[in-house]
């Protein structure tokens, strides 16, 4: 986003501090602000965690006779805010990737680096990255060579810091500026360095712009997902909300009783799980108050931007301790299953007494507290399928269908093996950027491993796989083929090639059969 401001003749560059949560991004910015003599603007915090960004503005240095104005931004590191992080990374002229040097943090470092790499691939011209190996003062910090090797990039510029002590932070920043200037030189040489007043001049305007973009993006998601641009059938559109356990089931309001008060981020400590991230999620989910509706079974549900909320009918309590016990029990189940669940939290919130009929509640008494599950909207395998038909060429579609089918069948083996979920399907399964499968829908309350159900796979694994793909993938293929200008022979051939290349001949044959039936 480098540009020359014609009003001040300053070169404006943006340095983005990226990295996983708790790596030391905000601490680095605070140390840098202190060293440079600047003020820090923190846009939104919850329990000391960055919600939007930290911002420092610094005027120093010169390039081709112009003073350099550095907009220094630290992104939020939490996984649930990854879209916000991407939004900021896409504006960077250079990125300082803050790495937690401890061995225990290696996995988180790699996950975060994968997202950065994805953004880097699309940047033009490319931006440089400085890896700031932080927390070097800790005894459990691993060697730089090992860190560099783990990140998988031997050419990565790496510095050592202890942001807590303010050591190495300024040197890293100056190195980052030099690398940003390399990018500027490229723009300068190609005469593509814009000469225009910056649309974002300070932290407040960045915050306003991000909110506007997010709200605009949410509208787009809604219109593409559930409105004018939606090519899905109404039942599938409804299934986009995690209103499980039945895939594709249409939910209808049952009663006209006044809804309870939705949870918000002011919920007292001890009533949110997980304790810190959960509050962040509630804050995000209720920034725009959700519209709550009573659905089948008498549950309350609502949607707000990228979040879905549900409070089961029976999850209401006369007093907070009773509700808290239920929260703890449900949280234990979530903790055990956390690795397989999409981002979500539980919250026990006070329900405002309504003026409408609430005699249908337990005991006829007016409940005071409600237990909510708040789930972040996640891209599912069904979404991936639809995107493939909409955007990919035949070869990519063949590869993609094979991949979706393999992921679905892997989920059947991994997620249902323990019997802890009643049902998984293409509409309830998602895949993270690192390839991990996750369940994206509401978890039933209370979450008790079900008895063996008739929907469990047959004894013959191959027969079960065909049954699953026929039941779930076939309707999707039928719909997409009916609504996209695809030539089936082309897709069949691409699928055949993909299956041969990946040694998945049997699966490829099944998928080809489904395409022909469609």
């Amino acid at each position, binding site marked *: 986003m480098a540009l020359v401001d014609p009003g001040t003749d300053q070169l404006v560059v943006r340095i983005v501090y990226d990295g996983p949560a708790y790596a030391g991004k905000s601490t680095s910015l605070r140390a840098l602000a202190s060293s440079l003599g600047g003020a820090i603007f923190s846009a939104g915090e919850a329990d000391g965690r960055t919600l939007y960004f930290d911002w420092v503005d610094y005027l*120093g240095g*010169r390039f081709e006779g112009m003073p350099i104005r550095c907009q220094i931004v630290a992104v939020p590191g939490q996984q649930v805010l990854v879209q916000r992080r991407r939004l900021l990374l896409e504006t960077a002229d250079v990125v300082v990737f803050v790495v937690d040097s401890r061995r225990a943090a290696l996995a988180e470092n790699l996950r975060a680096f994968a997202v950065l790499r994805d953004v880097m691939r699309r940047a033009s011209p490319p931006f440089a990255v400085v890896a700031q190996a932080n927390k070097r003062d800790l005894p459990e910090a691993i060697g730089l060579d090992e860190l560099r090797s783990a990140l998988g990039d031997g050419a990565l510029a790496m510095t050592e810091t202890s942001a807590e002590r303010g*050591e190495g932070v*300024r040197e890293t920043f*100056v190195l980052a500026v*030099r690398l940003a*200037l390399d990018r500027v030189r490229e723009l300068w040489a190609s005469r593509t360095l814009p000469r225009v007043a910056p649309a974002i001049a300070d932290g407040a305007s960045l915050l306003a712009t991000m909110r506007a973009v997010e709200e605009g993006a949410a509208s787009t998601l809604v219109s593409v997902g559930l409105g004018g641009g939606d090519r899905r059938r109404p039942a599938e559109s409804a299934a986009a909300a995690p209103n499980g356990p039945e895939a594709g089931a249409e939910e209808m309001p049952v009663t006209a009783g006044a809804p309870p008060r939705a949870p918000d981020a002011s919920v007292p400590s001890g009533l949110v799980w997980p304790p810190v991230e959960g509050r962040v999620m509630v804050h995000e989910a209720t920034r725009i108050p959700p519209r709550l509706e009573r659905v089948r079974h008498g549950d309350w549900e609502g949607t707000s931007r990228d979040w879905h909320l549900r409070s089961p009918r029976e999850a209401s309590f006369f007093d907070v301790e009773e509700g808290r016990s239920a929260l703890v029990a449900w949280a234990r189940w979530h903790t055990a299953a956390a690795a397989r669940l999409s981002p979500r939290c539980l919250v026990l919130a006070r329900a405002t007494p309504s003026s409408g009929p609430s005699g249908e509640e337990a005991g006829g008494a007016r409940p005071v507290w409600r237990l909510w599950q708040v789930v972040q909207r996640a891209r599912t395998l069904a979404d991936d399928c639809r995107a493939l038909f909409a955007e990919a060429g035949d070869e990519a579609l063949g590869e993609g269908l094979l991949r979706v089918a393999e992921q679905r069948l892997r989920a059947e083996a991994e997620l249902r093996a323990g019997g802890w979920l009643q049902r998984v399907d293409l509409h309830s399964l998602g895949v993270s950027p690192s390839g991990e499968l996750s369940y994206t829908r509401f978890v039933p309350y209370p979450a008790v491993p079900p008895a063996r159900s008739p929907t469990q796979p047959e004894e013959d694994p191959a027969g079960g796989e065909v049954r699953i793909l026929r039941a779930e993938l076939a309707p999707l293929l039928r719909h997409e083929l009916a609504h996209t200008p695809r030539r089936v022979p082309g897709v069949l051939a691409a699928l055949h090639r993909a299956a041969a290349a990946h040694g998945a001949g049997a699966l490829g044959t099944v998928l080809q059969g489904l395409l022909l039936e469609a």
Partner: protein
Amino acid sequence: MASEKEAIAVFEKIQADVPGFIAASLVDLDSGMTLAVKTARPDFDLAAASAFNSEIIKQKFKTIKALNLKSSLEEVLFTLSDQIHMIRLVGTGSFIYLAADKAAANLAIVRSAVIRHMAGLS
């Protein structure tokens, strides 16, 4: 290359040896950004001075190249009506910039102090 803390420690030694010390900075030549600063006068805009001085050094490099000289630049001294400014290269990518009050110091004192203590910056 010295850390910010090490550089400030060097500046403190220089300050002790130079009467009329005004300010000192360690500057990245390419960007003109300061890597470390020490100032005895808050009204002295050290960041701006350091940035402009980086351009002076770059221009001097161009002059040397234009003259086809085989020499390398070591230092630059400026004598103002009431101040002395000194720039001394540190390696190939950075320099020390020092300003002192001319009434209290002289070129020899400034130069001697910088050369004596700048080994701590390498």
